[in-house]
């Protein structure tokens, strides 16, 4: 892999939220707590590939999406976009970066402004980035976008409430495409949709990637969706990446106990497959003031003494796979 192949890389990316940090809490003697939403993660995405980021709710996947787009500012770490340090970007350069990286959100109902027509929603980004000058030019581009995402052109002057969830998600995708981005980040873009619609949208993502050579960071909690769409996968647990690797290998032979547990818990739509079960103990650990050591401590079937003290680093295990576990 050469550096030129890498579109986005993230090193030690960290976001801590402070709880009870203000003066009143201090006056009342409350302890300041740190919510370590994202705690030093590394990953990279190569041009043209899809990296799937999977984990349970609250593990920091969505925060990661917002950090790499600088919708929120990280506490520490580096984000490199096309070999440039995204965090050091000037206002102007950041605006350009907004054109290069686009987001598709989870909730198709709240991600479109209900008071704006589809024409406005899709042409506004072009306006901001000066991609289309005249009204007619914008109009033509918007119609082209609608066609591209499989919507009828007669939809252009309608409002979002006239569309179904799946159609809205198509509009949201069209908006992301309106600025010709290189990287599209999908933050659970199909989890609010019904199965039959979800399949349509997944196919659309695939088609667009092939047509436009897009790069995806695809975030989801549904493992089958991740398996389906991703080339490589990163598994997150409470602010940390515990395992990454090519999708096929990772799903066939998971190495980290958490990945194994996740896979075992999925109920597959096939009565012949083994029933879902949980191979871990207890419930998801808290990201608030987590103890040192591995985040899975206390739940893991393969725990040893060292786990409670030292956070396992993400180490290469060959075949492009990395795992953060002391007891492989």
């Amino acid at each position, binding site marked *: 892999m050469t550096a030129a192949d890498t579109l986005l890389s993230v090193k030690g990316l960290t976001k801590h939220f402070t709880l009870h940090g203000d003066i009143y809490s201090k006056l009342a003697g409350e302890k300041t707590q740190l919510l370590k939403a994202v705690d030093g993660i590394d990953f990279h995405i190569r041009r043209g590939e899809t990296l799937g980021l999977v984990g349970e709710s609250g593990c920091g996947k969505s925060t990661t999406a917002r950090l790499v787009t600088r919708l929120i500012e990280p506490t520490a770490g580096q984000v490199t976009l096309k070999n440039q340090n995204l965090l050091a970007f000037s206002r102007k350069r950041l605006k350009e970066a907004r054109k290069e990286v686009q987001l598709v959100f989870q909730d198709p109902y*709240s991600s479109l402004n209900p008071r704006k027509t589809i024409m406005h929603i899709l042409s506004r980004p072009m306006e901001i980035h000066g991609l289309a000058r005249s009204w007619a030019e914008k109009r033509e581009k918007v119609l082209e976008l609608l066609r591209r995402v499989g919507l009828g052109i007669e939809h252009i002057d309608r409002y979002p409430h006239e569309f179904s969830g799946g159609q809205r998600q198509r509009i949201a995708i069209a908006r992301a495409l309106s600025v010709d981005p290189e990287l599209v980040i999908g933050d659970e873009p199909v989890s609010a949709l019904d199965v039959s619609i979800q399949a349509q949208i997944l196919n659309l993502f695939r088609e667009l990637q092939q047509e436009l050579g897009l790069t995806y960071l695809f975030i989801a909690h549904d493992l089958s969706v991740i398996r389906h769409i991703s080339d490589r996968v990163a598994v997150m647990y409470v602010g940390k990446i515990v395992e990454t690797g090519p999708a096929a290998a990772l799903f066939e032979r998971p190495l980290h106990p958490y990945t194994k547990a996740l896979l075992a818990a999925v109920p597959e739509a096939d009565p012949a497959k083994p029933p879902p079960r949980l191979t871990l103990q207890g419930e998801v650990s808290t990201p608030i003031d987590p103890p040192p050591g591995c985040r899975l401590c206390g739940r893991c079937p393969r725990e040893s003494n060292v786990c409670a003290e030292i956070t396992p680093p993400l180490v290469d295990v060959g075949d492009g796979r990395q795992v953060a576990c002391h007891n492989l």
Partner: protein
Amino acid sequence: MTEIQADKLAELAVRRPAIGGRMARWRMALGNAWHELRKSRTASIGAVMLVLLFGACIATPWITSYDPIKQNYRERLQPPSEKHLLGTDRMGRDIYTRLLYGGRRLVAIALLAVTFGLSLGIPYGVLSGYFGGKVDTVAMRFIDGLLAFPGLLFYLLVVTLAREWKIEGLANDAVLVFALGFAFMPEVARLSRGSVLAEKQKEYVEASRAVGDSSLAIALRQILPNIISPLIVNATVRLGYVILIIAALSFLGLGTPPPTPDWGSDLAAARDYMETAPLIAAFPGLAICYTVLAFNLFGDGLRDILDPRLAER
């Protein structure tokens, strides 16, 4: 792409709403508004009452020929008759005429005051809510301070000041507009801030930021249109409240001094004749009631229409 589609595409690409088109759109919007209004009986009744009220206010000089101020001692305290629809007061002035002129003034003051309050409060609340952080904290503490003024007292202070400075006539009305609007401002600011905070959570705001829209543009062009409905409802109901306040102030003798026609002070003046001519006190009271009720009904109905949670009840 089929040929028909290509045609349609070309047509859509070229067709731009012309002026006539825009007019049509307005007409459609108006039609839709009426259609929506019909969904709520409360709102329709309120709307009809308001149309009558505004109509009477606008048409005042044409629907009465009396002078509201000129006294006529030969016709004091007359009961309702063909000549004087609602009778005359203790100065022999036609009550119907005084009600019309008083209402005109009252409604105008209320409308201006509420508009003033909205124009102060909306930007204040929207910006405070959108930018958040320390600015927001300070701004909201200031609002809390203003909200700490109990009931009528703030108006009493302002009206007193106006009296001491001998501000009279139109200037006095302007002071009233200012005071009432300023007192409405904290509520508007709070409400719009609350809506902005709720709206800010929605992903379309994040989406706007993600495509590189500027903060001010997001706050004003994206968020503002979405928070208007509760504000309209609030302002409508507030109009009724403002009218009650103005009436109460003039009832207390702190409004515009006589002989200016004024429902509140006319009512106060009629108190002395309550036993002999109770109708004189009844009419201004009924007029206030009608006006406030109209605004309340309309506001209530509007809330039902605009609040999707109530839509299916």
